[in-house]
């Protein structure tokens, strides 16, 4: 055997073991088992959406004017979700007008102003812990603090359990989410961008306004939109602060509504699911479809914003 033939054989053997498609059954099996977890998650989603749609779509197709145009009723054929829809939109407005500015402000302080002091570390830990507080505890806060404080402006029959209380409670609940996502967005803006601003003599606020915020805006926006989606679907704090079925006065405009009882889409779903009559269960499915579509639209907006403006430094 010549040397070159030995070398050829060796080369072929090495190439085969490096590139050959020896199938390893256990390896394939393992990756399939892992993939199965995602398949299960997908299957749950499909079954859930299919189950809701199967009931909701025919109902909405036949009775859309009743369901979308009527409020709560003890008679299932007259009952609808209009007040819940309006209530949920009001709650989102609270998040946009109150929680978003407050959250961005707090995040700016933590990232741009605060030095590494004990107080700053305490506030940061506190925000992180608030993000993990169960939603229903925010409900207790709303109902023990806001409902008591605001009781005097709502009158005795509402007893402080007004749209204003609900909006404040939901805003506080999503505040930590907005702060944390904004902090991450601010942290992603490189130091050199800020130094450019300081170099020409800008004050810290001027640097933030002209250099930091425009660059962090997509991340902040995405976080805020996700917080809105969260506010849209959250139920537990609302049932604590009296989001009751059937109440939401739309007479007299939004300012009057603030002082009155309210309801929201997820609360209506809860109320309808709890009723024994099957027609109410079907109505719950219709309300769920509307809610899920709203949440998907909001989330899709966030994803599109992220993809459109995402920037890597």
């Amino acid at each position, binding site marked *: 055997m010549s040397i070159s033939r030995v070398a050829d054989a060796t080369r072929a053997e090495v190439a085969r073991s490096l590139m050959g498609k020896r199938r390893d059954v256990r390896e394939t099996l393992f990756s399939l088992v892992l993939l199965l977890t995602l398949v299960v998650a997908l299957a749950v989603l499909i079954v859930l959406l299919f189950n809701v749609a199967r009931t909701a779509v025919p109902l909405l197709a036949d009775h859309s004017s009743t369901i979308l145009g009527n409020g709560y009723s003890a008679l299932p054929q007259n009952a609808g979700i209009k007040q819940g829809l309006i209530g949920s939109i009001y709650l989102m407005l609270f998040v946009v007008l109150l929680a978003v500015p407050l959250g*961005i402000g707090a995040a700016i302080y933590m990232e741009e102003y605060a030095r590494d002091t004990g107080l700053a570390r305490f506030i940061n830990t*506190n925000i992180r812990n608030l993000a993990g507080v*169960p939603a229903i*505890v925010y409900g207790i806060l709303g109902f023990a603090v806001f409902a008591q404080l605001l009781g005097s402006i709502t009158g005795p029959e509402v007893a402080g359990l007004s749209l204003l209380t609900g909006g404040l409670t939901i805003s506080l609940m999503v505040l930590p989410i907005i702060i944390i996502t904004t902090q991450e967005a601010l942290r992603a803006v490189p130091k050199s961008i800020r130094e450019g601003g300081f170099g020409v003599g800008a004050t810290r606020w*001027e640097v933030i306004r002209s250099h930091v915020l425009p660059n962090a805006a997509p991340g902040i926006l995405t976080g805020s939109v996700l917080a809105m*989606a969260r506010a849209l679907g*959250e139920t537990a704090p609302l049932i604590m602060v009296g989001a009751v079925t059937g109440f939401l006065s739309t007479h007299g405009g939004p300012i009057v509504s603030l002082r009155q009882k309210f309801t929201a889409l*997820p609360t209506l779903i809860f109320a309808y699911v709890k009723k024994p009559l099957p027609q109410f269960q079907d109505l719950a499915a219709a309300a769920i479809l509307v809610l*899920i579509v709203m949440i998907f639209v909001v989330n899709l907006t966030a994803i599109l914003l992220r993809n459109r403006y995402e920037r890597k430094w």
Partner: protein
Amino acid sequence: MAEVVIGGRITAEVLRGNPSRLRRERLMRGLFFSAALVSVLISIGIVLSLLGGAIDFLRKVDLSTLWSDGWFPRNNLFDVRTILAGTLIVAFVAMIVAAPLGLGAALYLSEYATPRARRYLKPILETLASIPSVVLGYFALRVISPELVQRVFGSQVPLFNMLSAGIAVGLLVTPLVASVAEDAMHAVPGSLREASYGLGARRRSTSIRVVVPAAVSGITASLILGVSRAIGETMIVAIVAGGTGGSLFTLNPLKGGQTMTAAIAALATGSDQVRGAGPAYPSLFFVGLLLFLLTLGLNILSERFVRRVRRRF
């Protein structure tokens, strides 16, 4: 803008800067600082309102009823064991579902999926995460309980049971576990994987023997966070766990039971009819305090584990 004439005399006045700009700087700093302080106020509000009500409860209640046959606030029976057992059973079932699903999905996304596949697979988990809990409660009542639990365990199992609630809570928690665990696996440096491949290890051995041990802190954190979220979940258990009106002490997940969160919701929404001077109404704050301390402890523990990952890499 401060008027600095190039080549002019630099005076102390010029170096001090424009007073109106400095005033605005101080104003903005103050505003951001107050926004950051709001988060501290929220925590103080939560703790004070929970403590006040809990102390009120302990003063009014006959302490022997805290260790009785069941949780029936209307009849002044406040067996803490009942709601603790209910909470732990639901959380345990939830983790049996969420741990394999979440960790499997995390390992697949982090070690097996190509970047292209990741782009299509990750939205499955994100969509599952965006489904509101009240919707999963409806799903548990309409699909999981009748089509899964009652089929497997026989129709003598009541429609409202803790097992169905636990499965639904597990599906709710899965995306959270997956996302935190995947972050931890992603943070494992590529050099460790390359070293493993260099020794001839396959993907499976690399995943199980290198990546998972290196990410074990983060994986533990994801599971603790999952338990914390499962304990704090309200709507699913309020709909399907079967604790409306109270529950006897039970450890059987196939029976109806009461969790801490569902007990709070029932007390506040009045399905337990507990207004008045008795201990039933303030018991809500007592349970809220227990829930708050339990989830806070778990969150702090998981934060510890996450920090350990950060320190190492």
